[in-house]
């Protein structure tokens, strides 16, 4: 207490005096690791700020001309810079890694093109696969059309039989209007239909196996859409790679559609593999 009185300053003021009260800068050099540590102190708004700079000193053998250039004096805007990199011009950044890519070309995202959005809305509908393109341009023209015709023939035969007795008849794709009273299940009781619907949901599931790894849900959608409305598509995928595991389940709204799909697509060559389609085994009994 006495000391501060004699000097006339509190210790805090002494620090404010500037460099006098600051410890001198120190420089340590660890020769083994080649690391130079410079510790500096400076005053800023009454606070002492300690700056520690760590440099890694490397000795590199260079050609004479490069070594000579290393000794050149700085000029221009850098004339007043101290030796070594100036932190305001040279910034060490975060680590970046080269991303190795496998695919040759990333496809251009479709969302960017407003026209492609339009094409998704059905302006035209293909008679073969119900796709949004002209029938003549259908990619399945050669594969699905004969198949479709075959199926339609098959579907017509039971049509001759009374409607009520057969569960199989079913309006051919893009066929005539059938009044609700004549539609399947119409002759049954109302409640029955409802419960049937439920059961049918469970039962109208098919299992597709031997799919190629590149298969996606949209491919399956395209492949099975011709057979009737689909309620759900489940494609088993690998958790890590996101690639298909080679099998999928497809739930149709109607069991008939499902059976037609089995008939139609089983043994169908798709993406260099022969597809195997069968009824899905009922899910685990509860």
């Amino acid at each position, binding site marked *: 207490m006495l000391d501060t009185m004699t000097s006339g300053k509190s210790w805090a003021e002494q620090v404010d005096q500037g460099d006098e009260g600051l410890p001198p800068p120190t420089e340590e050099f660890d020769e083994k690791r080649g690391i130079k540590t410079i510790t500096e102190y400076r005053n800023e708004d009454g606070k002492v700020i300690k700056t520690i700079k760590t440099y890694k000193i490397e000795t590199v053998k260079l050609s004479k001309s490069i070594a000579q250039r290393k000794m050149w004096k700085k000029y221009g805007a850098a004339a007043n810079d101290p030796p070594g*990199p100036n932190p305001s011009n040279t910034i060490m950044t975060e680590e970046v890694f080269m991303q190795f890519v496998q695919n040759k070309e*990333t496809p251009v995202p479709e969302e960017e093109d407003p026209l492609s959005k339009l094409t998704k809305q059905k302006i035209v509908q293909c008679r073969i696969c119900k796709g949004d393109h002209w029938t003549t341009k259908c990619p399945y023209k050669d594969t699905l059309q004969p198949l479709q015709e075959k199926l339609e023939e098959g579907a017509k035969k039971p049509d001759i039989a009374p409607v009520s007795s057969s569960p199989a008849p079913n309006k051919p794709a893009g066929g005539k209007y059938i009044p609700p009273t004549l539609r399947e299940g119409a002759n049954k009781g109302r409640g029955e239909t409802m419960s049937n619907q439920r059961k049918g949901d469970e039962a109208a599931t098919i299992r597709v196996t031997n799919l190629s790894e590149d298969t996606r849900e949209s491919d399956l959608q395209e492949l099975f859409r011709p057979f009737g409305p689909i309620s759900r598509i489940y494609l088993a995928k690998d958790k890590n790679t996101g690639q298909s595991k080679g099998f999928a389940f497809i739930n149709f709204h109607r069991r008939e559609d499902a059976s037609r799909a089995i008939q139609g697509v089983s043994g169908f060559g798709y993406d260099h593999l022969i597809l195997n389609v069968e009824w899905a085994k009922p899910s685990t009994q509860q």
Partner: protein
Amino acid sequence: MKPIMLHGHERSITQIKYNREGDLIFSCAKDSQPNVWYSLNGERLGTFVGHNGAVWCIDCSWDTSKVLTGAADNFCKVWDCETGSQLHSIETRTAVRSNGFSYSGNLIMFTTDKTMGCNCEIHVYDLRDGDQLASNTPLLTIPIEGSKITSAIWGPYEESIVTGHENGEICIFDIKSGKTVQSCKDHTKQINDIQPYKDYTMFITASKDNTAKLFDMDTLELKKTYRTERPVNSAAISPLHEHVVLGGGQEAMQVTTTNTRVGKFDARFFHLVFEEEFGRVKGHFGPINSVAFHPDGKSYSSGGEDGYVRVHYFDANYLDINFDY
């Protein structure tokens, strides 16, 4: 890898180049002060003060004694690399778009823009002849009638100049006669950059038509095409591996109007022979305007529209990369 970011420019980088031994990096930007840096630690050696407009091009002589810059202030200047002082200043009628020292460092070449009613021209000066510089009478002037030159380099043996034009044309001019020896039009849009292979047997062009192409230096035969989905601003061939690096992105004026999808601005590495992309390096916040390989092939730099130069030293996983074939 841990890139060193060089922040010496206030505006977008227009060109970067290493000197022959790779210890210095020269960068120029749309501000008026070209910079020179030590490539090893990113320390700035200095800036060249004297231009009064965007600097479009920079080159360095083989012995790193002189530096050549060309700018939009209608001047092409020669600097002393050691002191940063200006040695010569050549006034032109329009902006200087591209330039280069010949292999010996005795001849300089630069091309001027086609603006203000002046045609695009190639000028060649001999630095040994003081009269040429004093009286501003070049050794050779080649007027270009058609599409203007957007990029140009010296051919081998100081005998020719390879030029890339705004319409995608590539020409070789003989500097003895000043006539076009060869030309081809494999690109459909502007050539942004031409860079030679280390032995000058081939060169790579970067074009606005989303491709970079590899040409034979003698015959102008199209050897390879590297396709991307955006304009390529710059391309360089690795002196060490059979790799090329492409820098690009959508044009600066379109950046704000297209959706910002990350990964548009990365440097892309292609195999020289298989034309197959195998790697990408992210980092810039805008299109890359210029890329350059270190002469030893173990590091590369890129300069971007964001005004930064990034110096990358490759990791072992890149240097050890092998292609199965």
